[in-house]
């Protein structure tokens, strides 16, 4: 097992690192892996999903996240850096799609990764933040789902020319046993509709 950001891992594979199964948080990196002939195109599937959520540190999170984000009284709003950090790239897409411009009084603070953005809100340094739903669910943190920010897919792909064992591992990752594990980590199994949970698990 070898961890790293999808892009880092992609670079390592390009440099000749060996792998059997590649799990990617970014469809672009997976595409590059397949185009480069590293992963077998027919083995690539979405195994889990994720979404963007609004967290404010309060138990009752805003009912209308879009209206909340536009208002003046936020203070510090934590976001992933919008151009490269994956969380930020998704956030930018969401803000653009909804046409949300934060008020001039709102100071945007950018984190270098999703952990940092979530931490800024958790320690109440920031007043609100847009983070991954998985981070909020895993920690039972109250949140409001951002409905048009829900198309985040994680894909897996098997190395070209890998043996049966690699394909078995990939199949296991799609099994209900593995899905239970991912669900505990706050992710949404690929076969399921995104559930609109509010406030830390209550429907």
């Amino acid at each position, binding site marked *: 097992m070898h961890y790293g950001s999808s892009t880092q891992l992609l670079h390592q594979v390009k440099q000749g690192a060996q792998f059997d199964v590649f799990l990617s948080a970014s469809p672009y990196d997976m595409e590059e892996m397949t185009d480069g002939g590293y992963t077998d195109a027919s083995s690539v599937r979405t195994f889990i999903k994720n979404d963007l959520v609004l967290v404010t540190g309060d138990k009752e999170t805003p009912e209308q996240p879009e209206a909340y984000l536009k208002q003046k009284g936020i203070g510090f709003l934590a976001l992933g850096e919008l151009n490269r950090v994956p969380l930020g790239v998704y956030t930018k897409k969401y803000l653009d799609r909804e046409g949300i411009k934060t008020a001039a009084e709102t100071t945007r603070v950018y*984190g270098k990764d999703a952990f940092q953005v979530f931490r800024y809100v958790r320690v109440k340094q920031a007043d609100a933040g847009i983070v991954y739903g998985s981070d909020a669910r895993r920690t039972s943190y109250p949140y409001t789902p951002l409905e048009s920010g829900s198309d985040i897919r994680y894909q897996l792909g098997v190395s070209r020319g890998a043996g049966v064992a690699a394909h078995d591992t990939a199949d296991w990752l799609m099994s209900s046993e593995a899905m239970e594990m991912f669900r505990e980590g706050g992710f949404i199994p690929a076969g399921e509709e995104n559930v609109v949970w509010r406030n830390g698990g209550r429907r």
Partner: protein
Amino acid sequence: MAEWWTPVGLSLRVSVLSTLLVIITGTWAAFRMKKKAWKKRSWVEPFFMLPMVLPPTVLGFGLVYLFGRNGPLGQMLGLVDMHIYFSLSGAVLASAVVSFPLMYQSAKAAFQKVEDGYIHAARTLGTSEKKIFFSVILPLAWPGLAAGGLLSFARGIGEFGATLMIAGYIPGKTDTLPIAIYFAVETGEWAKAFGWTSLLLILGVTVIYTLNRITPGEGER
């Protein structure tokens, strides 16, 4: 282009302020400790030197813990409507904390070099302690103190980890050079990062060159 200079200006402001802060506190602490007995000193000094051996993330966590919105000091500042987190003062504080040991160590060495004979002589002539400090000790110790100040400046301008945790990345407000460089590299803006890196390189060489000039080793003068 004006945008390119913003982090440079912010970094200079942060390092100048933190260096001033550290020169005063570091010199004062070293001078006070000089008078203390060895036993007491050996207990206090490790705390002074701690920022040098701790990872910046630990210092950042400490600062967030103390000065965050819910931290004891953060709440006190909140009463007068001030905040250190997500502001340039947070960056100044982080820089000051990491460079304090360098200043303290340099000042300590500088004071140790001042021979007691001069101080005793001044004292027998009835000079006040304050005057002894400013017109006997300081002039004799200044090369070491200046070296400490320079080192603190150079260390302070490079602070990244703790700064990002407490001051955050707010473009145009808290993006000092190391933070701006980090995000420029991450977002593939290499030309920008290259320019800033060159600037820091020139600064680093200048600082070390100047250090060698003001505190020459044996037979180098």
